[in-house]
């Protein structure tokens, strides 16, 4: 067994809180699970031996803020190195919304029930998070409540920190909310951050995960959504690569007429790695799912996308689309993309496509013919490729904040 894992298990055995009854089975499973390696399908292209190799120093406690998002006007839940900072967080909440720190959740029976109910057991680091996440938050939106203000869960990380956080959210029937998970920090640290969203019938969740840890950071997490009848999910994932960045997304349609959109942007440079495994489960008929995954890799960066669509036997009349487009800016960059379709219903429409391309020379010539240099044109075109998805974001404050950041990242990219 890996030393890191052995230590994590030892730590987990010390955890004793209101969630302990729920942690037990995960811990038991974890003890039986082998440490993932290249032969483990889910980790085929993402080596995790770096976790073994790394010696984590005691955490540097210089506060690391996440960037402010101007005009977002959010309800802030602020975490530093995985620890909730009540002072930096918003305390006044609108009617219909209740939020508590995970540690203070004992009185909420629904939270105990829903912990680990949506997130599938197959995620190795999800099990670790089950066993070790004592920090995080519980968000409850009452039936019919429309929460206009976005709820921002801002997590900053400093060097040396190891942390495990969990978000549990319940969106009541016909309720509406916006959640922004923001993760930031480029120092060597390790965190697992998993979130479970229970979206009731006719509810609507607009979701952003800004996975913007970079540099030496080791960031592993997941977002898991359970969709009730006629519910809607619009999820956006922005991935900046780091030494090791992995996100698992599960969207489970468990009511008819549910609709989910997932738009994903990766931007990788240097030796960065970003790995997304998405899984869309259609268990009931008449559902719609649409995934757009766009990825730009420069230098020696490494992008992985594994997109699974699973349509169950009785889930007829499903419309499922998955589109993965990749732009390679260097010969040494790597993209591994794999669609996985498992369809047991016979009356469905399921489309998928993956392309890996270099820059469009026709568009390049058009821009150059207007006086724009090849390098600047490349930045414009790459930005445009990504910006198409940014333009689709509902929240203009996030889109406006993101554009210059993305542009800056392109400008710094190694173009060969």
């Amino acid at each position: 067994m890996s030393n890191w894992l052995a230590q994590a298990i030892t730590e987990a055995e010390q955890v004793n809180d209101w969630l302990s009854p729920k942690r037990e089975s995960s811990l038991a499973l974890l003890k039986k699970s082998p440490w993932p390696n290249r032969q483990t399908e889910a980790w085929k292209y993402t080596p995790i031996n770096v976790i073994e190799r790394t010696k984590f120093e005691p955490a540097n406690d210089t506060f690391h803020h996440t960037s402010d998002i101007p005009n977002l006007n959010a309800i802030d839940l602020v975490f530093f190195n995985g620890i909730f900072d009540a002072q930096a967080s918003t305390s006044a909440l609108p009617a219909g919304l209740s939020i508590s720190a995970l540690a203070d959740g004992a009185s909420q029976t629904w939270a105990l029930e829903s912990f680990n109910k949506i997130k599938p057991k197959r995620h190795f680091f999800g099990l670790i998070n089950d066993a070790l996440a004592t920090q995080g938050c519980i968000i409850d939106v009452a039936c019919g409540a429309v929460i206009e203000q976005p709820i921002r869960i801002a997590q900053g990380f400093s060097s040396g920190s190891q942390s495990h956080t969990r978000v549990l959210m319940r969106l009541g029937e016909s309720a509406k909310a916006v959640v922004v998970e923001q993760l930031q920090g480029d120092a060597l640290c390790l965190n697992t951050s998993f979130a479970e969203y229970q979206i009731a019938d006719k509810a609507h969740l607009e979701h952003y995960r800004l996975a913007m840890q970079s540099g030496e950071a080791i960031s592993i997490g997941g977002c898991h959504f359970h969709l009730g009848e006629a519910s809607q999910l619009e999820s956006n994932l922005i991935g900046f690569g780091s030494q090791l960045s992995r996100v698992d997304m599960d969207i489970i349609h468990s009511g008819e007429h549910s609709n989910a959109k997932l738009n994903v942007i990766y931007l990788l440079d240097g030796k960065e790695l970003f790995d997304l495994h998405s899984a869309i489960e259609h268990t009931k008929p008449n559902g719609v799912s649409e995934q757009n995954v766009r990825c730009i890799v420069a230098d020696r960066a490494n992008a992985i996308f594994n997109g699974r669509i699973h349509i169950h036997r009785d889930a007829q009349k499903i419309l499922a689309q998955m589109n993965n487009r990749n732009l390679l800016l260097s010969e040494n960059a790597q993209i591994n993309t794999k669609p996985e379709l498992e369809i047991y219903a016979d009356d469905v429409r399921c489309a998928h496509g993956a392309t890996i391309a270099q820059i469009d020379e026709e568009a390049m010539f058009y821009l150059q013919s207007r006086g724009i240099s090849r390098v600047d044109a490349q930045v414009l075109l790459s930005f445009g490729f990504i910006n198409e998805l940014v333009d689709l974001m509902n929240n203009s404050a996030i889109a406006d904040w993101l554009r210059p950041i993305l542009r800056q990242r392109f400008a710094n990219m190694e173009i060969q």
Partner: protein
Amino acid sequence: MLKINDLHASIADNDIIKGLTLSVKAGEVHAIMGPNGAGKSTFGYALTGRDNYEITQGSATLDGQDLLDLEVEERAAAGLFLAFQYPVEIPGVSNMEFLKVSVDAQRSGRNLAALSSSDFLKRAKSACKQVNLPLSFLKRGVNEGFSGGEKKRNEIMQMILLEPKLSILDESDSGLDIDALKVVADGINSQRDGKRSYIVITHYQRLLDYIKPDFVHVLADGKIVKSGGPELALELESEGYSWLESYDRNAQEENV
């Protein structure tokens, strides 16, 4: 202004332009007409420096500056502009941003101070109005979802903003209804200041009713085979290009 001498250009070893000689003076409008496959579009691409369009022989200078040695963007900064027959759609890049980056790049290439954002915005809005496009088109992706006519008008808007010395308009009239044609022609005419020059590539005399050319040339098989005044366009309109075959026969006989 523009001097082209014995230009030969090929694509993938196929010779398309075979000895084209043309001289355009400041303020002049030249029309190039000719049958399909004569090399009209190739001429535009070769002169602007598109990849895979290889110049195998000849010279081309703009105000004495050798164009053929320059990168595509340097030719643009030198004052060359091509209005595309099929403008390219670039989703995700707003028209406004594209125009701003283009204007900035060209001004810097010409050692002019950059325009302030408000100055640029003013000019962009006025150019947009001039070609009769709604201002919302500035915010949309470059040519994204534009109709054929809107794309052509967008080309003219770019021309107005970039103020090139020499513009090549590659079938800017194709696919336009008569109103759109007038807008395009007015856009071009508004830019005729006695200094800036135009090469108008077209199949039809119709456009030349609105943009009066000083010279009309017939391009066939990669060469200019006949030049004349505006009356030549009318002649072509009524007689078509069938006379070229006899022209070819005559030429062959002469060679024999």
